[in-house]
């Protein structure tokens, strides 16, 4: 028996049956999954969770599924790495990285898609769909393949080639749409009205969003069931930060944590920072932006959950940073150099935001800070084009190698042999 009570409007609180619906038809507020927390508190215990599988399904008591076997590529339970090198560089003693690059399709989207596609199966859909610049599409194509469902995926006609290959290998119906985001939005809405498809981030959005809250559950569990003082995550549609807030709140609702006062911080690219702008202006209004940043995974000009991400940061005492493309690239390089993690530009934005927040003394000495690195860099290599030192090309001769090594020693001022 599931703990899912139904769906509830985030704005007016009206209750809805847990079907393929995402908007309150009274006030147009978004719907979210609601649970019988009293019942869940008896079932979602630390002991039971510890015995669960090492993935998001260990938190099944707080996921919006009704009992069928989930569509499973085993997402989640990603490493929480103590980042001492990066921490020393940024002046943050207790810094951790939640490394989402190791998910099945190398991004945080796997958590959300796994839940949404599982729910699509429960609701009897035969076709799943999405519109995406990359990570969501990649994850959906993989999960649909695993579930034996057909998938229809809309991508912008100028999507990055590496992302397209990662999507296409699963053989979805892949449709590259000409025109900007507005046109794709309109086309998808018309298609959804006509076809019986489970659009995972539209009509299944209440379930899709729930997958991301498992990040909060894992962070708390991996810290020995304590809430960190700060979590820093990227903001694109805003759903991840919003879900992390819900996850932290639910841990107290089911009495796994007695209390939590985690400050939630967001990172956006300056070239697409509608939520950061509203935060700075102390406004509740998210003014749409025309994206102009190399961080394609952050290029959401009219974020669906922008206002909720804004509230998550503001109400928790956090902040939202906007960082430049140069800072993003520098953040990617720093993360790779200091911690051995190759992140997509959104990860670089989080590192740059950490730096900005640390400079502004947002973190007190000894506080625990967790940075969510949302996806792997191999999917967006174009962002680094011309930004890295090219390899030195030599003839296969020892003399040329020695000459190169000598230059390296001089450049790095390292006496003796370079340990390669």
């Amino acid at each position: 028996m599931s703990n899912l009570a139904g769906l509830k409007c985030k704005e007016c609180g009206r209750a809805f049956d847990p079907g393929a619906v995402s908007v309150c038809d009274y006030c147009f507020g978004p719907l979210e999954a609601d649970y019988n927390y009293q019942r869940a508190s008896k079932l979602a215990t630390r002991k039971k969770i510890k015995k669960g599988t090492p993935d998001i399904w260990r938190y099944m008591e707080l996921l919006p599924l009704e009992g069928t076997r989930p569509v499973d590529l085993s997402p989640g339970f990603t490493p929480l790495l103590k980042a001492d090198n990066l921490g020393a560089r940024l002046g943050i003693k207790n810094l951790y990285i939640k490394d989402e690059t190791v998910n099945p399709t190398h991004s945080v989207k796997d958590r959300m898609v796994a839940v949404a596609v599982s729910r699509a199966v429960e609701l009897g859909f035969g076709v799943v769909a999405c519109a995406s610049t990359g990570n969501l599409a990649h994850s959906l194509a993989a999960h649909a393949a695993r579930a034996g469902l057909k998938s229809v995926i809309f991508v912008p006609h100028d999507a990055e080639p590496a992302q397209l290959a990662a999507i296409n290998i699963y053989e979805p119906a892949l449709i590259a749409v000409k025109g900007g985001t507005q046109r794709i939005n309109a086309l998808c809405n018309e298609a959804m009205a006509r076809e019986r498809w489970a659009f995972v981030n539209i009509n299944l959005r209440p379930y899709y969003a729930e997958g991301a809250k498992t990040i909060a559950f894992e962070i708390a569990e991996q810290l020995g069931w304590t809430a960190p003082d700060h979590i820093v995550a990227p903001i694109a549609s805003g759903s991840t930060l919003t879900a992390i807030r819900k996850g932290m709140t639910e841990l107290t609702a089911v009495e796994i944590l007695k209390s939590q006062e985690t400050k939630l911080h967001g990172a956006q690219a300056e070239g697409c920072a509608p939520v950061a702008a509203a935060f700075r202006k102390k406004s509740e209004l998210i003014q749409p932006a025309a994206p102009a940043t190399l961080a394609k995974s952050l290029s959401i000009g009219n974020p669906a959950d922008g206002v909720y991400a804004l509230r998550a940061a503001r109400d928790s005492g956090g902040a939202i940073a906007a960082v430049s493309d140069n800072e993003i690239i520098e953040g990617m390089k720093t993360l790779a150099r200091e911690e051995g993690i190759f992140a997509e530009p959104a990860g670089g934005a989080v590192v740059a935001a950490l730096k900005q927040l640390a400079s502004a003394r947002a973190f007190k000495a000894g506080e625990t800070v967790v940075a969510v690195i949302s996806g792997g860099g191999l999917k967006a290599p174009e962002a680094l084009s011309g930004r890295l030192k090219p390899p030195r090309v030599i003839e296969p001769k020892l003399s040329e190698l020695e000459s190169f090594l000598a230059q390296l020693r001089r450049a790095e001022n390292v006496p003796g042999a370079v340990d390669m």
Partner: protein
Amino acid sequence: MIRRRLHVSMSADLVKEPILYRLVKEYDLSPNVRRADVSATEAWMAIELQGGSEAHIQEGIDYLTGLGATVKPLQGDVVES
């Protein structure tokens, strides 16, 4: 009839403008306000705009943006990362 769900926001100086009245009388549209907030500095409303055609609704949107209001689809971008 065509329906569009929109988020319309504006600065406080625009709240004196009878925009709903004009949408009805001059653009022959039927705006249905579902949620709204007006403060000393800004105002917004979530509306459903009903009209005879897409072009018809677009005229109403152009009127609002011409006044300096920001009009965006209520649900946000469908395209995600």
